[in-house]
């Protein structure tokens, strides 16, 4: 156990250092770079007086180390500052929009996991066949996809041509009331409130953006599952299972897939990267009111506090997730923590 404890502490220590580095990096981005946030906020037509007023308001007239001290203090007390646009705390605004993003991203992730693992296993079991070729083509197309374009294509097909999906405008049809707030996920909340027509409307708006996002996200899942499954299917214990007469399908599903899952675990971090990056674009195309659209709005109007808050939130989730994966991996595979 001391070994594992040492591994644990080392990983956590590295994660903390990384997050501290991220905080400094983000500060440098928004404070040292040549652009003047106050001038950007005031707009191109502003006079010097307004810019000075904003500079004082935002503390930009202070020496840089004073600014950093204030920034670090605020961060440590969990304060991401206020949006210059709305005057609301950034953390609160992000919190209000997070459920929309979670609903979309989680749905996409589940679809991607089911489709990706199924295709990956099929490709490995029938390696070299046309099934394998097809799956690999699917993964290559998914990994090198212009998501914004694919989203438009899908909207054109399923909304404009077939009329199977509603117009890509937010999470509910205009006029349909939001369900009473519990989780913020409209599908869950509407079910909890027994508003079935609202539930159907929410699902109707959700499925297309989720499928589009899932296609891109499933690509790394397919690749990892296929690779991991191929290795496991070649392992001695699978040959033994086969030799002692375990039914074929049972070997694939129960013995091989279960062992293949350990390497697949590491992929969750990569998948999260795809999810978040894709999410911004998909939210834009479908006018989905999540944190991706919030960040996009903030970037286009130079609302740096909001941008900073978004970027920090993503980094914290990303680093935290990778830490959990590392620890789980070390826990499952002793060679890693002892190495």
């Amino acid at each position, binding site marked *: 156990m001391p070994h594992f404890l040492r591994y644990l502490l080392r990983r956590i220590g590295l994660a903390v250092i990384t997050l501290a580095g991220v905080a400094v990096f983000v500060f440098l981005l928004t404070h040292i770079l040549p652009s003047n946030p106050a001038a950007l906020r005031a707009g191109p037509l502003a006079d010097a007086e307004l810019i000075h007023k904003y500079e004082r308001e935002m503390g930009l007239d202070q020496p840089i180390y004073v600014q950093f001290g204030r920034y670090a203090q605020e961060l440590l007390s969990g304060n991401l500052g206020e949006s210059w646009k709305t005057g609301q705390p950034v953390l609160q605004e992000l919190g209000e929009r997070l459920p929309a993003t979670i609903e979309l991203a989680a749905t996409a992730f589940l679809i991607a996991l089911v489709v990706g693992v199924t295709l990956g296993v099929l490709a490995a079991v029938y390696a070299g066949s046309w099934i394998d070729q097809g799956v690999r083509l699917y993964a290559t197309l998914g990994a090198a996809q212009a998501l914004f374009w694919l989203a438009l294509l899908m909207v054109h097909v399923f909304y404009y041509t077939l009329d199977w999906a509603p117009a*890509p405008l937010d999470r509910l049809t205009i006029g349909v009331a939001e369900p009473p707030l519990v989780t913020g996920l409209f599908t869950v909340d509407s079910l909890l409130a027994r508003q079935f027509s609202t539930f159907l409307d929410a699902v109707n708006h959700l499925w297309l953006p989720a499928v589009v996002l899932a296609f891109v996200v499933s690509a790394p899942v397919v690749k990892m599952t296929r690779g991991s499954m191929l290795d496991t299917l070649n392992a001695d214990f699978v040959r033994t299972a086969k030799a002692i007469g375990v039914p074929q399908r049972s070997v694939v599903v129960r013995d091989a897939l279960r062992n293949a899952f350990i390497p697949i675990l590491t992929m969750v971090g990569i998948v999260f990267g795809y999810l978040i990056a894709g999410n911004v674009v998909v939210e834009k195309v479908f006018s989905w009111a999540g944190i991706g659209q919030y960040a996009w709005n903030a970037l286009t109007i130079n609302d740096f506090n909001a*941008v900073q808050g978004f970027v920090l939130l993503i980094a914290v989730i990303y680093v935290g997730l990778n830490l959990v994966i590392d620890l789980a991996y070390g826990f499952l595979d002793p060679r890693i923590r002892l190495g």
Partner: protein
Amino acid sequence: MDVPLAPRVAGRSARTRSFGYRSLKAVGRWRLLSFGVLLILSYVVVAAIGPELAPYEPNATHPQATLHEPTPEFRFGTDKFGRDIFSRVLYATRLDLSIAFSVAVSAFLVGAVVGALSGYFGGIVDDVVMRLVDVLLAFPAFILAMALTGILGDTIPNVILAISVAYVPYFIRLTRGEMLRVRTLQYADAAVGVGNPRWRVVLVHLLPNSLTPAFIQVTLVLGWAILDAAGLAFLGLGITPPTAEWGVMVAEGAQRIITGEWWTWLFPGLAIVIIAFAFSIVGDGLRDLLAREER
């Protein structure tokens, strides 16, 4: 359903496969790789002579033919200003490829040198570099590029800088990993022994032998950089209208999604998807090829 237990290729070891079968597989792989290379070369040709091939100037408007469907006169149709989309797609090739090459080359150069020095010297330098890499990798690449472009301002050099910064850590890691391997080889000691300064041993003797993984990565980054630059432009960041650029054009076409003028966004998007696909299969193909040679 008959579920074969062992995978058809890797399951039976390669030895039991006939030479003919293996050659066939190799040809298949070569064919895909060559197909990708051919696609890339044709894009390079279009980048070079596209403006000669284009029937119209990229920003020339035809007020009598706005949002015109594809016809022999306007092969990919026209946008809301009556600009010829075919000409704009051709013109954009040079810009998009230049951005991709600038990103890949600068990220490669910086990443390879920093990674090599870090891997060879180790110690405190290596620690600092690796922590910096951790910080950059704490963001998904596109998110980092997006924030950097938004903060730096909407110019093409800023887009190149932003995307390069997002990919530098990958090159640092790959080159550093290789350097850790080659620095223990005997010829490294020999090079030091005959009196070469250490920096020279790293950059002249060891670095060229540590570049294979980074070299493969260049091909992949070329594709990703095009997707990222176009994706940023689609979000209204970096490259802005009226520049003829694929992402900008898709963004302008996206405004027509409700009214159904599909040609405004379909063709520039196809231009992106095809070249990204080509870089991807070439990158994957090279990785397979070089990985096998090393075995």
